[in-house]
């Protein structure tokens, strides 16, 4: 399988435009010749979506990266759509700033790809989603027209917020060439408290019952046993087939110290608690934000993302473990956001399909949704990876036709066959 393989398909051509004009000309040609184009950033999320109807050109954004303007005193940064998140964080870090997006596939993910896939992380409820950080955007629509919605100010209500509308569009509307984002100051101190539990019930209950108002936390995660074991493997943190509840604290130095002690005490029922500081703390969260990237390689991986109202997250966590039990799933939950993931490393597609359909029903009953983020083609042919988006579909189709009337970009990959 090559770097550009998508659902078993290979592109006839790979293009790596260096500027907007080149993007325009690729898309113009695709429109004239009726070609299908997939935008490839770091290639980390190519498995998302249905199998493309056409895949003639892979348009790589690898030459559209780089920081175009960083204005630390304004807490804004403009980057090319192909800029890697990891590189950006390193540059921002030198000025004691960061982008509060803990997207998975940290080493490869590009900013354009993160916007397109709307991948947020454990701190999403605290800091907001990527769409909230977009101050300006430049892009080339599927029809090959370049647009400039570039702004540099936090508050701007002139006209529609087209700049953030591309969030979650999965490369089906436009190629994002430039983004201006809001950055945040790093906090003086961070720490994590990990508590280990024998059962999911105990871990979930502790997470729900933490007296949250008393702590300056920014994320609370619950890791299933297998993920917790993976954490042990990668970081040597004693997990031993136990569930892990992990709390991230940020703020003033002594406050974080005091709060981590209080959290530890508050989590008494656990088999063991550990507090991490400094480097260990950061590498732990590097792991948690990217469990999907840390899963064992190979096999026909199936990755599910399930979103429910936060208070329903214990229920869906246990349902996921139950329904998928025969596949021995990896499960983990960003408790604050109500978003959980479940991954299985292979299995009979017909049985998997049954499980997915059942879990989707359960999520929908709780006012949530289930998205299949990665699956072998055979399974994708049996189940809609996105699920039903309801009454909004007609609007979505109308908007697709405004941006990409000939269905050149990622044809057939998005919701409702868009």
């Amino acid at each position, binding site marked *: 399988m090559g770097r550009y393989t998508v659902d078993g398909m290979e592109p006839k051509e790979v293009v790596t435009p260096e500027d907007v004009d080149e993007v325009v000309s690729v898309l113009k040609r695709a429109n004239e010749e009726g070609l299908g184009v997939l935008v490839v950033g770091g290639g980390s999320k190519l498995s998302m979506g249905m199998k493309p109807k056409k895949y003639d050109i892979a348009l790589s954004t690898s030459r559209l990266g780089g920081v175009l303007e960083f*204005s630390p*005193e*304004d*807490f804004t940064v403009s980057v090319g759509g192909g800029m890697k998140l990891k590189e950006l964080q390193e540059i921002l870090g030198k000025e*004691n700033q960061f982008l509060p997006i803990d997207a998975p596939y940290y080493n490869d993910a590009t900013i354009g790809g993160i916007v397109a896939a*709307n991948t947020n992380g454990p701190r999403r*409820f605290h800091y907001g989603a990527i*769409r*909230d950080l977009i101050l300006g955007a430049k892009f080339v629509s599927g029809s090959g027209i370049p*647009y*400039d*919605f570039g*702004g*540099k*100010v*936090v*508050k*701007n*209500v*002139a*006209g*529609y*917020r*087209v700049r*953030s*509308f*591309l*969030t*979650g*569009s999965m490369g089906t*509307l436009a190629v994002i060439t430039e983004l201006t984002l809001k950055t945040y*100051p790093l906090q003086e101190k961070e720490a994590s408290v990990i508590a280990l539990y024998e059962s999911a019930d105990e871990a979930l209950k502790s997470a729900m019952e933490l007296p949250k*108002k008393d702590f*300056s936390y920014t994320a609370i995660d619950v890791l299933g046993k297998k993920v917790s074991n993976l954490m042990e493997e990668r970081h040597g943190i004693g997990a031993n087939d136990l569930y892990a509840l992990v709390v991230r604290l940020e*703020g*003033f130095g*002594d*406050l974080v110290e*005091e709060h981590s002690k209080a959290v530890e005490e508050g989590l008494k029922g656990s088999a063991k608690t550990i507090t991490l500081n400094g480097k260990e703390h950061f590498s732990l969260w590097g792991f948690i934000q990217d469990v999907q990237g840390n899963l064992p390689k190979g096999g026909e991986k199936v990755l599910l993302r399930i*979103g*429910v*109202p*936060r*208070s329903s997250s214990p229920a869906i966590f246990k349902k996921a473990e139950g329904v998928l039990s025969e596949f021995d799933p990896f499960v983990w939950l960003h408790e604050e*956001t*109500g*978003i959980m993931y479940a991954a299985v490393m292979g299995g009979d597609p017909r049985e998997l399909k049954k499980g997915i359909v059942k879990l989707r029903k359960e999520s929908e009953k709780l*006012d949530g*949704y289930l*998205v299949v983020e990665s699956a072998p083609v055979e399974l994708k042919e049996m189940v809609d990876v*996105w699920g039903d*988006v309801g*009454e*909004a579909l007609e*609007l*979505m189709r109308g*908007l*697709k036709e*405004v941006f990409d009337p000939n269905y050149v970009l990622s044809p057939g990959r998005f*919701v409702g066959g868009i």
Partner: protein
Amino acid sequence: MELEPERALDRLVRELGKEKVLTGLDETLVYETDSSNLMGEMPLAIVTPTSVEEVSKVLKICDEEGVPIVPRGSGTDLMGGAVPASRGIILSLSKLNRVLDLDLEDSCVVVESGIITASLSEVLMEHGFFYAPDPSSKDVCTIGGNIAHNAGGPHCLKYGVTSNNVLGMEVVLPSGKVVKLGGKALDPPGYDLQSLFYGSEGTLGVVTKAYLKLTRVPESRRTLLAAFKDIEDAGRAVSEIIGSGIIPGALELIDKASLDSLAVYSPDRFPKGMDAVLIIEVEGYEKVIDRMAERVVEICKKNNVSLVKVAESEEERESWWKGREETTGALGIYAPTFLDEDVSVPRSKIPETLRRLYEIAKAYNVIIASVAHIGDGNFHPAIPFDPKDEDSKMRAFAAERELLKVCVEMGGSITGEHGVGLSKKEFMSWMYGERELELMKRIKKVFDPKGILNPGKVFPSEKGD
């Protein structure tokens, strides 16, 4: 399309009943305008539905009969967005004002869109929560209007504007279709239609429900006043405060021109002879709040502050905020009324922008006095004028035009939170090219193919309009 007002009104009355479709002059007259005081067309009727189903019926009927609709919350729009630009109906959301679901576990409250923004605090405070966006008009304006303008206020530096605090919404389209966007489950699949509704000024659909994010009331607060002889120093202090990891709950700047008028209007509020005064409010845990305040003091001192102090009592704090509020009233010493602007520039450009504004003021022989949400670069210059004096009025409007141009040049926006409406639509082409405007128009068409929703707003007039 032929406008069929009679038939439309008949149908509306039949569906909703007479008491919800008011056509008498007594009722319609006040709806000719909003807080902008611009005069529009006399509405055909004021329609006040009491359920989503009724909203849906109204939209469907008006769409079929080609009758324009102006959705309306409380009419505090300062840009004429709630003024009927053509003859049609006003769709008032004022009766859709219930709290539907207070869900503390999910940090969410679900409300109907006509609810008054500040009325939420009464419901939430007792549980230790609040809804963060706090436009100065909060005692009057509605959540629907806030979404339609993506409203902000002093607390938005720390907590974000309306869009950062709304998890989902229910909207009704001209077809009568009711669509739910987002909700308590975050990041659902599909295009981000919600993004388009923030700041859409009633042109895409009618917002009927909102899922609002709740924020915990911080344990403690300290309020500081810092007065600077040089506004550049104030600007640097602001960047350093935020850079130090403290994001104040509020960070407001009062400029020299405003201080000058305040010095006459209520002489004891602020120190005299200053270039800029900052009101800084830090929030957080009791244990560290004094250290936060100390750090702010240190940073101000490092940047040549002339006077900096922490409020010693609630009275002192209130007196400072009162001073901030009085800046508009104080302009009365110059002229009976004023143009109230709302612009945005990158934060570091505020000192330079203000300097340019003073030059404009000189050139046009007017006063330009500003207060700024300086933390996020949004500020409100006001230009006093006498409406009875044609020359004074012309100079004020000409200066305003120049001012907007300067803000766009600085990489800013012609509006940070008040919207475009009627007043600023001709300036939209300063910010966007033909192509971008065309794209926005085509987006609108997807939602509102016949163009019945708030026509004549936001987009520059076309030839022949």
